[in-house]
């Protein structure tokens, strides 16, 4: 759906040059909820603003729905932008317009007829659950309600893509969840492709199907969230993952917890239905090893269960080797933390 090819962006100002994006290439599939996470100043906003050419890339191509945006200008670009919705951290609603008038705004820009606007606005108001607020001004809304208006406004022209720049960063955790649920709902109902810029792994964990990690102007890691969460490669991705799954205990501490010196410490990861399978019971019964649970957690990634368990395994080297094979056959990820012998 969105193809980003060799995107570069350098800001030149009196103070000097800042490279905000370097060699960024990404493919964002149709109907994905694609998260882009990075620390402050990593280049996230620049990247998302390049996607609808609010920021002119220094070089590279942006292809959305088969159309190369970087070749467009003037009227063609404005028309293309009507097919790319965008929502913002600070909402940016028009204060002089009511909720309904705000939602009507992009339709007016597109030259849609009055009757059509009225019907469409009504539809959108019920989609975002703000029917009673149609004639209220933005100054009388809560942050969450303002973002709902932002979403309705962004969806008014039936875009194929929705860009979100820190859409929940100004909201409290509960409101964040309700907005994320709304976005997921819209993604499923309309098949809309969503690009979520955030610095919070919580947001990624809640709704994203894929994630890219941006660090110092470059994409350092990307893939389906399950793989990035289970096996983060880069240091920065590891930090992000441990910010939501703080299950990394220092090996020395685990060693102290483990009662036996000649055992091994492993961590096993479950995803999906395997998280509820009786893997451990089977393991003990089948391989004749003893398992001592030291630490563990179960959480969810989107709708799938995701968990990890830190174990001390006791047995002969042969039994332990068999245990590893057994776990691998059950498609459980095994990570050896320390071997006692």
């Amino acid at each position: 759906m969105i193809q980003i090819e060799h995107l570069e962006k350098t800001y030149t100002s009196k103070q000097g040059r800042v490279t905000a994006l370097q060699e960024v290439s990404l493919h964002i599939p149709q109907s994905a909820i694609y998260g882009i996470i990075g620390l402050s100043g990593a280049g996230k906003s620049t990247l998302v603003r390049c996607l609808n050419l609010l920021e002119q890339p220094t070089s590279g191509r942006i292809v959305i729905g088969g159309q190369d945006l970087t070749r467009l200008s003037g009227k063609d670009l404005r028309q293309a932008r009507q097919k790319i919705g965008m929502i913002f951290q600070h909402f940016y609603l028009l204060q002089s317009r009511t909720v309904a008038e705000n939602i009507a705004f992009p339709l007016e820009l597109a030259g849609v007829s009055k009757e059509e606007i009225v019907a469409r606005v009504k539809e959108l108001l019920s989609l975002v659950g703000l029917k009673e607020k149609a004639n209220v001004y933005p100054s009388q809304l809560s942050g969450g309600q303002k973002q709902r208006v932002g979403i309705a406004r962004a969806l008014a022209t039936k875009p194929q893509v929705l860009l979100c720049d820190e859409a929940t960063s100004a909201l409290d955790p509960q409101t964040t969840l309700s907005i994320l649920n709304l976005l997921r709902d819209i993604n499923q109902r309309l098949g809309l492709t969503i690009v979520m810029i955030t610095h919070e792994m919580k947001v990624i964990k809640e709704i994203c199907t894929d994630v890219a990690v941006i660090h110092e102007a470059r994409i350092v890691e990307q893939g389906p969230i399950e793989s990035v969460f289970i096996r983060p490669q880069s240091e920065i991705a590891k930090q992000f993952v441990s910010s939501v799954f703080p299950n990394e205990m220092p090996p020395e501490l685990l060693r102290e917890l483990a009662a036996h010196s000649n055992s091994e410490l492993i961590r096993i990861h479950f995803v999906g239905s395997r998280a509820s399978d009786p893997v451990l019971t089977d393991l003990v019964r089948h391989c004749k090893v003893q398992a001592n649970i030291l630490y563990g957690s179960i959480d969810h990634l989107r709708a799938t269960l995701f968990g990890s368990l830190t174990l001390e395994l006791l047995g002969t080297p042969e039994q332990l080797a068999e245990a590893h094979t057994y776990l691998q056959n059950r498609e459980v990820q095994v990570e050896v933390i320390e071997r006692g012998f």
Partner: protein
Amino acid sequence: MDFEWSMLADLSYWHTTLQLLFPAFGETLYMVLAATFMSYALGLPLGVLLVVSSPGHVLPNPWIDRVLGTVINIFRSAPFIILMVALIPFTRLVVGTTIGTTAAIVPLVISAAPFVARMVESSLKEVPHGVIEAALSMGASPWQIIYKVLIPEAKASLILGLAITTISVIGYTAMAGAVGGGGLGDLAIQYGYNRFRTDIMILTVAILVLLVQGIQSLGTILARKMVEH
């Protein structure tokens, strides 16, 4: 005829005084309204141009931005009384005469329009950049940004600016009156000053104070209404 307090009890005093005040008030009103209207007709587009041509805005153009800014500053730094004299040939060209209320409107407009441009500029700059970007992201054209985003969003501030401009123009009309422009200023000079009619002086000042007060209150109320909905 000098003023004495006992005259206030006399009906014919009021009759003649009102006969003096009424036309002068009408002239002032005419000059203020016409000059304010025309200075907005000129200054509003210039103010909009100043904003949209600034760097990073919807129609960035360093040339327009700089040249326009400089011209406006030059006109704004000339004192009104100097401008009025300097513009005499131009005024004659436009209205055919250099005395009277209509002639006074020309220098009033030339001096108020750059002021209006700056007022409009500062009002429009209050619209957050993010709001403009949001509109751009929805495919708005620069023209749509101007009349659907900048002006409606800055309405309250623009109205306060209108009140301030009108009040400044009232001050200028009084000055224009001093050199034959007619209106309350003229009356105050001719009767109040030259003929020692302190009563007329006080009455003209009182009318001007009420006018200024009324316009400011009206502007404030309207602006507040727009913000509070």
